[in-house]
């Protein structure tokens, strides 16, 4: 690659928040006509770096040079004026306005009678044409478009302002494969026009498909800048997490090596439990120290079954035995009393309480179990919290920080800690690793494996079949709200096996 002058040069940028060094002397440069990916785990400082570049955060020290000029940006409008536009993960457009109005907001074409709407709509149409969205009518309401198309509309909007640097912060996280391909076509076209593109994504395949260059951050520190072609995936992952990849790969085989045959008395035996409209009557058996994976597509009934087991929903049919005794788990409190803990897939709405601190979030379940009349003494709380922060490697290790300020992976660790603190015999984890990065994912998987070794039974639900196969001792396969198969995990079982079962759905009770 010939080396023209970089359009953005950030040198030894540092930003501190109370108690944390979010960025520590980080360098970053971006050239016109390249796609440059910022890689790092959650909490590595990617978002902070982007916010420093767009003027949302003030930098403590360092230098930002844009197009040869040293700049101190003061906000989005200022960044736009300097030719930097950002498209965020949650599309930041106004759903109450039309497509054209959104594209042109703040840049409407004006005449002697105020905004000239027909000229504005023509300009919007031209911008949309440039993104291959010529078929859209700018007068249509934005709300009618899919998220993927809205994202492209947001990019069209960025290009209206003569953008030289386009920042795409996790643009693909809610798109399907086809939509991602469409987005990439647009990104390549813009790159060829000389736009510098800063790309952030958790999906390694996508990173390798689109980017020319990578900058890796870890714990707010600069690890290095690499050409994508020269750095293979396992190298990249180990640079991101600072650990050898083999540790990661080891989990699965380790589990199987340590696997003990289940005892006679199952911890939980459910017979034909079901609930109208959510899951057909299903049998579930779970032994102590066993990990039972629920595999199936989104909406197959995985979550519904889990909710019945923990008492979040009330089953209308079936019977449940816990430790050999007939039990009714009709509400979450009864679930807790039976030492069943359920961590919801909806981290934001059913998991964390955003404005409370890490400590307050962590002790919630224990407190609920004790009852509100008996508050946990502060010293006991602190001991509990510091134990789990250390055990689960929550970063930053500050119990008094509002949980909303933590990255997704660390929030998930706190939630895991919340349920572990209740010392459950049965832990139900619904999508515990969704939307979090490789490092945190590995840590959570390791924790789950250790828990099982310590005798806790785990129900593990995940959309990532590889993950289910790696961790589970047995796998229950669900489809269309019913159980279609149950298999012992072992050699020869892999993600494809399960995909085949779901696709063909002829086998019942496949033994291995």
């Amino acid at each position, binding site marked *: 690659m010939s080396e023209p002058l970089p359009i953005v040069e950030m040198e030894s940028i540092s930003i501190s928040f109370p108690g944390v060094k979010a960025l520590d002397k980080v360098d970053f440069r971006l050239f016109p006509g390249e796609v440059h990916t910022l890689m790092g785990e959650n909490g590595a400082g990617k978002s902070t770096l982007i916010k420093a570049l767009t003027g949302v955060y003030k930098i403590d020290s360092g230098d930002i040079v844009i197009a040869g000029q040293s700049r101190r940006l003061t*906000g*989005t*409008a200022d*960044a*736009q004026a300097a030719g930097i536009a*950002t498209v*965020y993960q949650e599309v*930041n*457009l*106004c*759903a*109450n*306005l039309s497509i054209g*109005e959104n594209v042109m*907001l*703040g840049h*409407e074409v*004006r005449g002697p*009678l*105020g*905004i000239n709407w027909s000229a504005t709509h023509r300009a919007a149409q031209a911008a949309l044409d440039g993104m291959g969205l010529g078929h859209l009518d700018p*007068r*249509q*309401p934005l*709300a009618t478009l899919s998220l993927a198309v809205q994202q492209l509309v947001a990019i069209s*909007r960025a290009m209206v302002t003569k953008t030289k640097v386009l920042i795409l912060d996790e643009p693909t996280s809610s798109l399907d494969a086809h939509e991602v391909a469409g987005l990439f076509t647009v990104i390549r076209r813009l790159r060829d026009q000389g736009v510098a593109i800063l790309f952030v994504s958790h999906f390694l395949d996508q990173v390798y498909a689109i980017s020319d260059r990578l900058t890796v951050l870890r714990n707010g520190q600069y690890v290095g800048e690499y050409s994508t072609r020269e750095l293979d995936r396992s190298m990249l992952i180990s640079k991101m997490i600072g650990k050898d990849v083999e540790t990661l790969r080891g989990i699965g085989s380790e589990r199987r090596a340590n696997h003990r045959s289940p005892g006679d008395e199952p911890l939980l035996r459910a017979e034909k439990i079901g609930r109208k409209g959510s899951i057909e009557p299903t049998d579930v058996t779970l032994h102590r120290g066993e990990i039972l994976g629920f595999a199936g597509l989104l909406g197959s009934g995985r979550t519904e079954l889990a909710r019945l087991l923990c008492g979040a929903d009330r089953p209308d049919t079936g019977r449940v035995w816990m430790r050999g005794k007939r039990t009714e788990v009709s509400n979450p409190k009864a679930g807790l009393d039976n030492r069943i803990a359920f961590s919801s897939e909806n981290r934001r709405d059913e998991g964390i309480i955003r404005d409370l601190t890490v400590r307050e979030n962590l002790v919630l379940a224990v407190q609920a179990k004790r009852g509100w009349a008996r508050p946990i003494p502060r010293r006991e709380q602190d001991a509990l919290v510091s134990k789990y922060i250390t055990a689960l490697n929550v970063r930053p290790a500050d119990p008094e920080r509002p949980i909303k300020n933590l990255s997704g992976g660390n929030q998930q660790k706190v939630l895991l800690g919340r349920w572990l603190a209740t010392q459950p015999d049965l832990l139900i984890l619904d999508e515990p690793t969704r939307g979090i990065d490789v490092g945190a994912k590995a840590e959570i998987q390791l924790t789950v494996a250790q828990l099982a070794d310590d005798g806790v039974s785990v129900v593990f639900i995940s959309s990532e079949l590889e993950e289910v196969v790696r961790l589970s001792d047995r796998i229950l396969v669900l489809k269309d709200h019913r159980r279609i198969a149950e298999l012992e995990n072992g050699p020869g079982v892999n993600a494809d096996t399960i995909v085949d079962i779901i696709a063909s759905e002829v086998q019942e009770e496949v033994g291995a």
Partner: protein
Amino acid sequence: MTQTPERAATSTSGGARIVDFLDAVQRKVQERASTLPTVAALIIFVAMIVYGEIAYGRIVQFSTLSNLLINNAHLVILAVGLTFVILTGGIDLSVGAIIAFSSVAGVMLSNAGWNPYVVILLMILIGSAMGLASGILIQYFNVQPFIATLAMMFLARGLASMLSTVPERLGDDSAIRAFATQWKIIDGPKVNDLVVTPGVLIAAIVVAIGFFVLHRTRTGRTVYAIGGSEQSAELMGLPVHVTKLWIYVISGTLAGIASVVYTSRLGIAQNITGIGWELDAIAAVVIGGTLLTGGAGYVLGSVVGALVLGLMNVLITRDGGIRPEMTTIITGSILFIFVMLQRGVIGRGR
């Protein structure tokens, strides 16, 4: 929306034309579901006129309609101001009290011999200043709009009461009264004249400017964007902070103007004037189809909303059988129906 040439050519008969028109309206409404409540307000307004004409008579005539405009000019002006505020998702509870303060201060100064034009300017500026104070509290001290304007409401009401607690009569020769001069546009039989006052004219100008600002300036578009999503608006680089400040200044200023118009018509100012008018204005805005959560609505809808409220009072007076105490219950019912209607529209939009 535009008819195809062939279709226009074939649809020459009246019936076909009406069908075409209804078609176009239907398409327009489907395209923009947010217009539905405003259209509904218009339909209700027309229905009320028709009902009034049939049941009581003498509604569709110049004198009644003129009086409707003259008596509600101040409410229309307030409703325009609140449309801006509510479009951003905010609220302004201070406008009624601002009218009381501005009105009492204006009459007392005028009677003390101040130049009437200076007094008028001052009456308007009192409104602007109180609006600015609300805006600063909301924008820079992060106070909820409800609380900030509630505080300004108490402040303005208190200041008015400190000035005087008895009705203050405006001198008969005061130039302020000029705003209530009745201009006969059409001299009908008996007293059935089409009459317009400068107050009505001012209200019309305010509506026109309000419409222009909201639909033809970037400030206006920012107002809608803030109502849609304040965070998005900010990330799009729009001047959210300044605009939010302006919104309350506009609302306060219009309350000052409404005070001038109202004072000139009545000729009396009192510290208890305008109690509950902020709620009337909010009701007018909501009935006119503006979403209380912001982001969708029209100034013209608010005008219709204000006139619906005004017409309702006329009809209740004409009926004679309905006790005036019932007015608020009926207002409440209409408001309730409209909010339900809006919910339906939002529900379908998603």
